């Protein structure tokens, strides 16, 4: 992660469980994913850095780039939350 990670990201409960039961962990974070959503976990173990692109929320068709950017949260870029609703 670029910059200082939030405290939950460093917690043993997150680090131990997200690679083993990501769906359960995401549900505890309040992100309930349907069975039709496949989950990919990326353990960043080298110099490679990943960018998670959050899904564009519904009802944002007319929004400007600035307005859309305001919906992107740090947590949504870690992949543990969806982008904010407009």
């Amino acid at each position, binding site marked *: *992660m670029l910059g*200082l*990670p*939030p*405290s*939950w990201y*460093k*917690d*043993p*409960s*997150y*680090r*131990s*469980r*997200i*690679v*083993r*039961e*990501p*769906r*359960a*962990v*995401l549900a*505890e*974070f*309040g992100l309930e*994913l349907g069975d*039709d*959503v*496949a*989950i*990919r*976990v*990326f*353990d*960043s*173990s*080298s*110099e*490679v*850095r*990943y*960018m*998670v*692109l*959050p*899904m*564009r929320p519904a009802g944002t068709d007319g929004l400007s780039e600035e307005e859309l950017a305001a919906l992107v949260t740090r*947590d*949504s870029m*870690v*992949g*543990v*939350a*969806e982008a904010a609703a407009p």
Partner: protein
Amino acid sequence: MGGMQGFGHVRPLTAEPAFAEPWEGKAFALGLLSIRAAGANLHAFRHALERVPPGEYLGDYYDRWLHASQILLADSGILSAEQVAARAARLSGSDAAEPDPPEPHKPSMASGGPGNLRTLDTPPAFAVGDRVRTADLHTPGHTKLPAYVRRRTGTVTAVRQAEVFPDTAATFQGENPQHCYAVEFDSRELWGPDAEPFRLSIDLFEPYLELRRTAARRRHRGHRRAGLQGPAGRAHRGPAEHPGGPSRGGVHPLLVLSMAGARAAAVLV
């Protein structure tokens, strides 16, 4: 600690700020400074973190950083455990005498350049689509092969740019750059048949891997090289030729998460 059980529920996402107490910020700064003062590198700092005794390791995150800083500084003869104990006693009101500092003996490992990305003349041993098995590694030193992916079979999904090998750099035995691969595992290969269904991708260095089965299209190219099916194929594919390979600067612009059509969610660790 990937896969360890018993840590309970995750903290709520609202658990902020990054430094809950002012001393945590100081510990963070001391950690980074200790790397420079000890003449070490980030790999050595990670190795020091791993040598923090388990009881302390699982305690407070920044307490772990302080322990690691002290280990690193002691390794290089910058600060002794006796000095730290004496200073702590004095700060608690005792008039304990402070011993003299030890004789510094910083490591001297030449660096072939800034950062950790390197270019290798030797071609990568594996290609996208190859099935690879991870090593049964039990090193007392540092490694970037986590316990939970040892002795597991996965598929190479990208050839990354070569990097300084953390396993040797952490103990100042040289950069020893190695090819690096994104390897994807099925969750059932990692956690058994009752695992949640998902795929896990992790970047692994070439010495951790052995070939199990060459990708089908690579076998095909091998035939072409032998002149069996037309003009000779290219002997090797460089990382840049792989779809999903690295971009300049080591940032992999991976596009994932909940794309409406793909219906996939990506989580970073």
